[in-house]
């Protein structure tokens, strides 16, 4: 159990170091996913399985995919098929693959000793039911504030991310059209 924690912790630190030293954004994001997965395994060994699932779903799933979408929208480089082929060199994905393989081995090991949460860390195991009861009991105000925050985030992202269209008055529009026509001639 302790060994699992230490392995996952070193994988997390290693992957994070790789994140902050990459030059290519996509490679950094690949290592970032591994780092989040490693932290999820740490949560599992800490007796917080629900948070481990949330970490994988929200951080490694939603947030990283959002960043990838924005990088794709920016279309930073004129990467074509050759570039894609160059990116898929084994030396690029072998690092994240090895690190996540270590995490997979840990997961299999933890599943093999299936009664892990009940016996191993019985003192510190907090299941999802206790979290839910506390979340909608004493912390219900925080839940409502989170809802307001998410609403503000949606509205803010929509407002900021909108492309401003150039608005031209209809008189000026005619002038622009004339100018274009004379430029074409």
């Amino acid at each position, binding site marked *: 159990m302790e060994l699992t924690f230490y392995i996952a912790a070193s994988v997390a630190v290693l992957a994070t170091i790789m994140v902050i030293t990459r030059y290519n954004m996509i490679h950094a994001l690949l290592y970032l996913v591994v780092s989040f997965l490693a932290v999820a395994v740490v949560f599992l060994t800490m007796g917080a399985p629900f948070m481990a699932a949330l970490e994988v779903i929200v951080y490694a799933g939603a947030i990283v995919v959002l960043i990838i979408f924005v990088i794709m929208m920016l279309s930073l480089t004129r990467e074509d098929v050759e570039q894609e082929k160059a990116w898929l060199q084994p030396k690029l994905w072998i690092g994240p693959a090895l690190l996540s393989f270590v995490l997979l081995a840990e997961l299999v090991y933890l599943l093999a000793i299936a009664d892990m949460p009940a016996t191993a860390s019985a003192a510190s195991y907090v299941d999802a039911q206790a979290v839910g009861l506390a*979340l909608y009991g004493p912390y219900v105000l925080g839940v409502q504030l*989170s809802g307001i925050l998410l609403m503000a985030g949606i509205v803010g992202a929509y407002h900021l991310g909108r492309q401003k269209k150039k608005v031209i008055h209809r008189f000026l529009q005619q002038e622009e059209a004339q100018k274009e026509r004379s430029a074409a001639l």
Partner: protein
Amino acid sequence: MTAIPMETGLLLAGILFMLGLISVMIRRNIIFMLISVEIMLNAAGLAFIVAGSHWAQPDGQIMFIFILTMAAAEVSVGLALILQIYHQLKTLNSDAANFMKG
């Protein structure tokens, strides 16, 4: 089969937070700075989980849920701002945005 000592978990959270802080200081690419902020938020959440596991209370995990919510809202607004900066300045260098006034 003993539980993990609290100091080790907090040390891991501290190391991850320091890595994020270093990255946000040495990087000038604004997307990398956003990623580093995510790393730091994650490390802070890890510290909450460690503390909640030490006292076997659900409060630490609830704080982590709130941090998760905040990170999701922050990254969506931050990415919208990055899109705007890129369309205005045609670069992702954060130093290029040093002329903004008021």
